[in-house]
């Protein structure tokens, strides 16, 4: 097996719900290797997004350990976690979440500006990334001037801005029609072929099938882990 990028060991995540406690994850152990393309699937409420949030260092486990790129991230301070996300992880969300006040190229530049990449360099890289996702003609368009598929491609370019070693996507085709969804699936495949490690959470069977590895979850546990043959 190649280098391990994601390693979770007996991870639990509980949420308080009134006087009760919801056990969103109940002892998940998982390893994801560099260059993997993993789809996490399962019914709603099975803990897919919770697992993705823990891998993305935007949430902390109740118990267990989470390591990304060999670094323990479960005990990181907010500042450490923010810097870690900036340099190591790219996020793609179901609702794109582009800043409506910025153009496509500015949206892609935002994480680079945060990482203090010089202005000229980030403008050049943002343009290249938008060209990579097929939006070289839409650099200065605002999100409101782009279709859903185009917005999601901008979001993917933004996620790749700081050359992350891990790309996380939460239902990236959830708000797209079948045709546009297929374009995004194809783009993910191309990204993975080019060496990006991808983890997607999805209900979309086509997207899940496109992945090299499918992790099935139910009631906060991994119930199946299948590699593409």
């Amino acid at each position: 097996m190649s280098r391990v990028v994601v390693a979770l060991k007996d991870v639990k995540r509980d949420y308080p719900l009134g006087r009760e406690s919801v056990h969103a994850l109940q002892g998940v152990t998982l390893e994801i290797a560099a260059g993997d393309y993993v789809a996490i699937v399962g019914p709603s409420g099975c803990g897919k997004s919770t697992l993705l949030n823990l891998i993305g260092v935007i949430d902390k486990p109740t118990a267990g350990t989470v390591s990304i790129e060999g670094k323990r991230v479960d005990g990181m301070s907010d500042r450490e976690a923010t810097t870690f996300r900036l340099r190591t992880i790219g996020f793609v969300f179901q609702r794109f979440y582009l800043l409506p006040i910025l153009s496509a190229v500015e949206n892609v530049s935002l994480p680079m500006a945060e990482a203090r990449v010089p202005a000229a360099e980030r403008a050049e890289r943002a343009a290249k990334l938008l060209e990579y996702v097929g939006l070289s003609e839409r650099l200065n368009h605002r999100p409101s001037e782009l279709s859903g598929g185009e917005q999601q491609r901008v979001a993917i370019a933004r996620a790749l801005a700081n050359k992350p070693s891990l790309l996380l996507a939460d239902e990236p085709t959830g708000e797209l029609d079948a045709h546009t969804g297929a374009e995004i699936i194809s783009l993910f495949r191309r990204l993975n072929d080019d060496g990006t490690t991808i983890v997607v959470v999805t209900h979309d069977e086509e997207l899940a099938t496109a992945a090299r590895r499918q992790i099935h979850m139910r009631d906060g546990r991994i119930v199946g882990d299948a590699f593409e043959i």
Partner: protein
Amino acid sequence: MRISLAWASLIRHRSRTLLAVLGVAIAAAMLLDMVMLASGMRESFRELLMSRGFEVRLAPKGTLPFDTDASIPNVNAVIATLRANPDIEAISPVMGASIHVPVNGRNVSSATLGIDPSVQGDYELLEGADVKDGDALVANDHLLGELGARIGDTLDVATGYDPQTRSYTGQRKLVLSGRVRFIYGAAQQPASAMQRETLESMVEPERRNRASLFMVRLQKGSDSEAVRSWIAEQLPNVTAISIATAIAQVDQRLSYFRQLAFILGAVSLFVGFLLVTTLVTVSVNERSGEIAVMRAIGVSRAHVVQQIVVEGVAISAAGALVGLGLGLVTARYLNTILSAFPGLPMAIDFFLFQPRAAWSALGLLVASGIAAGIYPAWRAASLPIAESLRRDAIA
């Protein structure tokens, strides 16, 4: 990037931003007016007293100048006593009285001052000549209007008038030599001045050689308080008032204005603070998902807070600038109304623009805008990212 993000965010909701700026501007204008009112009248009074360079005034014992009809006897003896002090440069005795002028069968009355034209500090000449000889009289616009007279006209001026018999006493023909503006004169008050000797020649003998007020000019660098104390010792039958004591008395009388200004100023500041807090809170709540995504992609908490605070500062600063203009315009308008208050010198300004006080007040407003933005911004940037995203997705 943060400034351009803040700017873009503000222009995204143009109407809301514009209304917020307008709201802050009104609060700023009111705050500025209250600051101008709190110290304006005092400063204006001080400037007025200082304008002719007379640092000490002498009034009959226990009174303020022209507060009553009382007067100081033995003018020449008082002058002689005062001249003994080397710190005293000039002495201007002023006698106050009323004059009456028959005009087309009706009587026109006016306050008049008997002065020494070489050292007088009560009026400034606008047109014509000063009261250089004993038969001259100068008048303000209001009296000229009531008399329907012009410079050069000869008037039958009397110091006594019996309205029942319509008879005049102490009459003398005087030539209107000039048009003047009385520095301490109240609005709408007809007033005139002539040489003190002229006025003395027209009043009853018992009122002669008396003065309602002495204005004393000191040598440069003299200690006005020391001279005031010296006068109080030398002339126990007069009240000597230095500018400092006069201002202290004015302060006492104006404490109501200051308290009112302080309360209204504090209310304005609080309203501005609440306005910015409300706007920033609404804006932050609306963008909770956006903020969570910024945090998720690696934007630091401090940078998110800075961006939101910059929005608050921009609104406060723009509001403060617009409020400055608005405040000055309203102050000028209100000043015109209040200056017409009976019995007050026309030259007194209720609202006086003092740059230091004004900038401090507006600076305080902008600072309150910053403070107003920090808490909601920090709270929003500190919310758990995953939870905020989940809530936003559900919403």
